[in-house]
C-alpha cells in the first residue's frame, strides 16, 4: 500500500527552524539523505523530493483555453508543502514507523496519508 508522508512548512516549523544552529540545520539535510537511502535499501521507496520556496511557485489556471500563470497569493497562505516521501509498505503501521524517521517529525510533525489505489469490490 502506498502512503505519502507530507512535510509542511508553517509558522510553527519556521519558529523551530530559527532556534537551530547551522550544524543542526545541516544535520536535518543529512538526516533526509540518510532516510532516503534507508528507504531504498528496505525496498519501500517510490519517490521523494524537497520543494523550493513557495515564493517561487506559480499558480496556473485555464480560462477560455488561455493558460494564466501568476505569482501566488502566498502572502495569505500560512502553510505550504515543503517536501514529501512516497513509500510502498505493507500497512499503516509501517508507514507511521517511516514517518517517525523523518527528521522534521522530531521538530514539528509530519502528515501520513494513504494513496488511493485502483482496487474495487463487488456487491
Amino acid at each position, binding site marked *: 500500500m502506498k502512503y505519502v508522508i507530507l512535510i509542511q512548512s508553517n509558522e510553527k516549523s519556521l519558529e523551530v527552524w530559527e532556534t537551530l544552529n547551522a550544524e543542526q540545520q545541516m544535520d536535518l539535510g543529512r538526516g533526509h539523505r540518510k532516510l532516503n537511502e534507508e528507504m531504498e535499501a528496505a525496498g519501500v521507496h517510490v519517490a521523494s523530493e524537497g520543494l523550493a520556496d513557495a515564493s517561487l511557485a506559480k499558480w496556473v489556471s485555464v480560462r477560455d483555453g488561455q493558460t494564466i500563470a501568476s505569482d501566488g497569493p502566498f502572502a495569505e497562505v500560512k502553510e505550504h508543502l515543503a517536501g514529501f516521501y512516497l513509500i510502498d509498505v505493507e500497512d499503516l503501521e509501517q508507514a507511521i514507523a517511516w514517518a517517525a524517521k523523518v527528521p522534521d517529525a522530531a521538530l514539528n510533525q509530519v502528515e501520513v496519508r494513504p494513496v488511493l489505489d485502483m482496487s474495487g469490490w*463487488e456487491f
Partner: protein
Amino acid sequence: MPPDRLEDLLRAAAPQVLGAVVRRYGDFDTCEDAVQEALLAAAQQWPAAGVPENPKSWLITVAARRRIELLRSETARRRREDAVLHEPPPAAATNVDDSLALLFLCCHPALTPSSQVALTLRAVGGLRTAEIARALLVPEATVGQRISRAKQRIRDSGARFTMPPEPERAERLNAVLKVLYLIFNEGYTASSGPSLHRVELSAEAIRLSRQLHARLSQDGEVAGLLALMLLTDARRPARTRPDGGLVPLAAQDRSRWDAAAIAEGTALITATLATARIGPYQLQAAIAAVHDEAADAAGTDWPQILQLYGLLRALAPGPMVTLNRIVAVAMVDGPAAALTELDLAAREPALARHYRVAAVRAHLLEMAGSHEQAREQYRLAARQTLSAPEQRYLESRALALRP
C-alpha cells in the same frame, strides 16, 4: 518463432531451469541472478539464431557459466574460484521437477508479503525486474531491493531448497496460496485498465496457479483457488466501464463475461467440492460460481450464497466475509433484517472502523428506500475508501439519490 511464443517458452522454462541449477549448486541467490541473465541472453539471441534443439539444456548451460562469472566478480574471488573449479559440470535438463520446491522457497514465511510477491514473480514466473516494477507501479530499484533482501533473508533463515517436510507442508502450502492470491488481487489493485506494456498480474497468478494445480491436483484448496481466480477474472470485461468506472455485479452486462473461464472454473469447483475436504478458497469459488451461473442479477440463487457464506464464516471468519454475508441476508430476508445484523456486527472491534461498513449500510438503506440516510452513508463511505474507482462509484450513488 513469434515473440509472444518465445516469451511463453522462456517463462515456462524459467522455474525448471532455476530448479536444476539450484539443485546442482545450492546457492539460490547467485543461481537466481544467473538464470535471469541466461533468460535475457536467450531473449536477445534466439530470435536471430533460432531456438536451440533443447532450450532448457541451453539455458542451464548458460546459467551455469554466468554463475561462475558472477562468483568471479565478487570480492571473495580467489577462494570461491578454487571451489568453483572443482565443481561438477551442470547436469542436462532432467525430469525432476523442482518448480514446486522453488515456489515454496519463494513464499517462505521468513519473507515479507511484498518480497514474496516480487521473488515469486521473478524466480517462478520468469519475469524481469523491470516488468515486475511496471506491474506493481513502483520503481525498478525498489523491486530489485525487495528481491535481494528476500534472498538475503532466505540465506539467513537457513531455508533449504527442498519440499518442506510433511508436518509443516500444509501450512507452507497455505502461504503459497496466499501469495498467489495476493498477486491475483494486485492485478486488480494496480491496473487501471489494460496496458500494452504491462504484465497482467491476475493472468500471471492464474498461470502460476495452473502450474501448481497440475502438480498438486488432489489438493482441494489449490483447485479452489484456481477456480476462484477463473470465476472472478471471468467478470473482468464487464466490471469496469471504458472510463475506468466501477460496475457493480448486479449491473454488469453478463454477455461480456468470459463464458469459457466460467465453464472451466465451475467444472473445477464442482468436481473438487465432491471429493476434497472443504476449505475457504473452495467456498469462495463456489460463491463466485453461483453468481456466474445466474443468467441475470434477479436470477441469482441468494439462499445458496447465504448458506455458503454461513459455512465460510464458520471456517474462515473475517470482516469481508461478515459484510458479504449481510448483503446476502438482505437479498434473502430483506434489508431490515440485514440492517439489524449490520448494527450488531459493527460493534465488533474488527468491523467498528472498517471502511466498508458504511458502504454496505448505504446499500441496505437504499434498498429499504431510506434515500436520505443512504446518501449520507454513501458519502461517508466515499470519504473512507482507499480505492479511487470505489470512491467515484460511491460518490455517484450519493449523487443519484440527491432529492
